[in-house]
């Protein structure tokens, strides 16, 4: 079945990007509207996909497949790269999240005044490649979009960022590039070890494929190939598949980010402009988690099983380490950045548990954290826009001056710290439940993770108390700047609040979608 809806999701922003680039600068006020219109159309398109998504099957839907590159490798057969898109229960929630967050990001970009043409062109380019990354079902195509996200991100942080933007941008670039090179090595290895069963029979030659569906199937591995699951090939004295899996978890661990590969994130977040922080925390981190599920766990289930302790350990350490760091921060944005590291740790924990609850919880946590972290960075942006200052200690009693703002902040903070009916709770609850139910993981691992919830309650509530309660005061006599939200900010924060509450009360909106696919995914273990 071929349809064009997923392609439209990718190419509409790319077309918008080119359009912005080609329009003369005299239309500079219309650029932001192009961004918004493109994002709205994409979101509507995604919602229609979501409605038409068949919840009762686990296989890929809306599949689009076109032959792209066929290279003959001489005696080795043919290298086949397809333009292959599709969604299942694992990437559908991510797609929905991207649609929402990219729209919020484009609304938030309204305040960008400096070189709008370049900004919106890059923003749309970024949007297209993010969506492309989530819907690709061909490893080559996935990698392409994965790499291609770096470039617009580098410029968006580097040009429109804060004081140390150049340092943060290059650090982000190099960290992620190292990660993606590790992934590239595995990609080459996998494609050399797997043949497309159908085309190989048809053409009589070995067709090396990058197709996700083929890579996940052990039957397609070529005998005596290096990554063959049942022949124990060795690299440097360790199993080849183990080696490949380690490369993948480091590669995606950088993107996720998981301790100890997280050090780029606080810099990038603090220096990035608000909309880019929103996109970075809301979606880009999820690309790493998605890669973990789809690629590292999907293609190497045998190794992932052995690695439960290490992945869960990395998750728990991220949770605790991120939380303690967040507790110590004086800068609001930095605090939120570390809280992101902490919350993404739950995704790893849920995934490592390899239970239905845990993996569903991980996907839900990704979705929920996407909404909440977008809100959190918008909150930081609101304060920064008014005062050019983000230090927590510089503000007190904001609730009396900015009541509407305080309400949104309360939803965001409580959503993040895991109050029931808000998304943070469901994600953390299910991942930890998965951890307890897991036959492999000992119970104390999940208990430590629960400590993370307590810590996150501590730093969020303390921040809330310090900044919003008490008598109204802002440092350097900036009291008169502290105006309440304007219309644009209300739209962004309140729509996200509403979505958080809806998805918090009805988590089945996500679980129904992901359920069947997760079951099928866990059958591989």
């Amino acid at each position: 079945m071929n349809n064009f809806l997923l392609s439209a999701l990718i190419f509409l922003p790319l077309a918008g990007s080119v359009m912005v680039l080609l329009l003369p600068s005299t239309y500079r006020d219309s650029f932001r509207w192009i961004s918004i219109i493109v994002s709205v159309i994409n979101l509507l398109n995604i919602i229609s996909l979501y409605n038409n998504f068949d919840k009762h099957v686990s296989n890929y839907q809306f599949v689009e497949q076109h032959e792209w590159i066929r290279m003959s490798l001489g005696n080795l057969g043919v290298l086949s790269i397809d333009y292959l898109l599709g969604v299942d229960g694992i990437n559908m929630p991510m797609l929905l999240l991207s649609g929402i967050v990219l729209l919020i990001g484009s609304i938030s970009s309204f305040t960008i005044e400096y070189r709008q043409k370049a900004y919106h062109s890059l923003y749309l380019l970024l949007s297209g490649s993010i969506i492309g990354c989530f819907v690709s079902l061909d490893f080559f195509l996935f990698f392409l979009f994965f790499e291609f996200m770096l470039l617009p991100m580098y410029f968006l942080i580097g040009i429109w960022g804060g004081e140390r933007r150049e340092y943060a941008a290059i650090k982000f670039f190099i960290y992620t590039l190292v990660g993606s090179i590790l992934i590239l090595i595995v990609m080459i290895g996998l494609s050399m070890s797997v043949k497309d069963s159908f085309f190989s029979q048809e053409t009589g030659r070995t067709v090396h494929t990058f197709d996700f569906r083929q890579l996940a199937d052990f039957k397609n591995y070529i005998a005596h190939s290096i990554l063959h699951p049942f022949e124990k090939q060795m690299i440097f004295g360790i199993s080849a598949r183990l080696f490949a899996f380690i490369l993948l978890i480091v590669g995606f661990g950088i993107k996720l980010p998981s301790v100890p590969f997280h050090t780029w994130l606080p810099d990038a977040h603090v220096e990035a402009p608000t909309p880019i922080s929103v996109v970075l925390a809301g979606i880009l981190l999820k690309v790493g988690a998605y890669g973990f599920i789809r690629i590292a766990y999907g293609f190497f289930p045998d190794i992932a099983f052995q690695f439960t302790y290490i992945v869960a350990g990395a998750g728990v350490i991220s949770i605790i380490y991120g939380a303690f760091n967040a507790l110590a921060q004086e800068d609001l944005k930095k605090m939120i950045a570390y809280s992101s590291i902490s919350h993404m740790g739950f995704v790893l924990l849920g995934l490592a548990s390899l239970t239905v609850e845990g993996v569903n919880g991980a996907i839900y946590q990704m979705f929920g954290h996407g909404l909440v972290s977008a809100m959190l960075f918008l909150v930081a942006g609101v304060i920064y826009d008014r005062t050019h200052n983000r230090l927590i200690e510089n503000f007190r009693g904001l609730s009396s001056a900015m009541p509407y703002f305080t309400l949104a902040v309360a939803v965001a903070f409580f959503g993040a710290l895991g109050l029931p009916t808000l998304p943070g709770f469901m994600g953390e609850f299910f991942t930890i439940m998965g951890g307890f139910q897991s036959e492999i993981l000992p119970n104390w691992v999940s208990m430590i993770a629960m400590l993370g919830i307590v810590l996150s309650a501590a730093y969020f509530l303390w921040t809330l108390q310090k900044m919003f309660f008490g008598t109204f005061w802002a440092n350097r006599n900036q009291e008169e700047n502290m105006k309440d939200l304007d219309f644009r900010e209300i739209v962004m924060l309140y729509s996200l609040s509403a979505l958080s509450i809806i998805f918090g009360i009805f988590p089945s909106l996500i679980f129904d979608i992901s359920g069947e696919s997760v079951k099928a995914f866990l059958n591989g273990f």
Partner: protein
Amino acid sequence: MLEKLLNILFSSRVLLPDLLFGVVFLVIVAAIAFSQKLDAERTYVLFNVLLISVLISLGFVFYAFLGFYTQYYESGSVLFGKLIYLDSISLFFKLIISIASVAVLIHVWVVGYKVVGEFYAIFVALVWGLFIMTMTTNWLMLYVSLEMVSICSYILVVFNKGKDNSEAGIKYLLFGATSSAIMLYGISLLYGMTGTLNFVGQEFTIFLGQNPTWIVQIAVFMAIGGLLFKLSAVPFHSWTPDVYEATPTPIVAFLSIAPKAAVILVLIRLFSSLSIDFRMIMAIIIMASITIGNFSALWQTNTKRMLGYSTIAHAGFMLVGLLATNTIGIQSTIFYITTYLFITLAAFLLIDLLALKTESYELESLRGLGQENIFLGLAAVIIMIALVGLPPTVGFTGKLLLFTALWESYQTSGSNMLLVVLIFGLLNTAISIFYYIKIPYFMIFKEPKIGVRYFQIGFIRKGFLLIFLFFIIYLFMRPSGLINLIESLKLA
């Protein structure tokens, strides 16, 4: 006797287009000797450029025409008593060299370099030498063609006489002469071992195999010394940055691709008939080239010097396909060279266009140029990520193919060394991003010193750069055509 004469006659007929170069060389020398200085020097330059470009293309049309006589190419034809070996792969490399020379001549004209007439004569001789190098399988012929290329390069490097220029020229000459001497010594050792000067063939392979491996390794390493010098691979690389910095950019652009392509072809031929395991030495050369090239480039503040170090690193990457020692390895090397042709020519053209504005090759002088001219800023981003090897540029496809070949070779041979080279090479691309990105970084991120002053570059200059950019992107999107062409070449 008559047979020999007939052979020479026949060979000359097949090689007619090559001999045409000799005629052109003589004609230009004569024309310069007898012509007085023209007043409108510019028309003179234009005249020369058109003449040479037309001739090179003409010569090539000849080749294409001859290509119909498949008996010369399909199986490869041996000419001039085994001195010349003509096959489809040499034809392909001649095509690469021709494109490079035409592009460089247009570069000279577009940017407006003032050159003397002798330049064209020397240039023709240089191209001729390279053409001969692509179709030789004989050590002596190889040495002669290599010297022909070297001597012409020595002259070209010092063409516009300056102090830096002569220093670089002397360095180039000394290093070149030394490596030639080493090469000659290696060749004599190999001749002593095998008793044949032909390095492709049963005789060479069999006799070489009868000698102790380590002696053969040393001899081969010495014999390819002169080639590695042209390739600017470690340990024969140290001339590169100085020469690149001091030499006029079009000539550097030419040196960064055409001699390398010819040398790689010779290496492909040599390695396909080596009967010993030469991979260890190759691996060391590759890793050393990539590392030294990349790490030295990190500290450079001059763009041309930086690109000089970058070509050292790229020389390492070009050899990766040969390390793989399989057919796909050779094919991906050829693919890589073809793509590098467009990338490197584009890179040098770009910095020359920028230098037109700034009159300097310092990184610092690039401040804000991307803001003042968005087209050049975009071009810089595309070219530099192509040099790193990121998608969506053809640099990525080239590296992907190379490392796929290496992986395949590793999978069949199980030699861990290959995997080390693979990981090492790939991680090095992450390091290289740091200096390549500096050029767009200075152009786009840094504010210009005195406000933003928009400027335009001429239509022809823009169009010329666009052609390269088009190929860099297009070959990524649709590599099949080029790959099929390379596959159809008969590899030795």
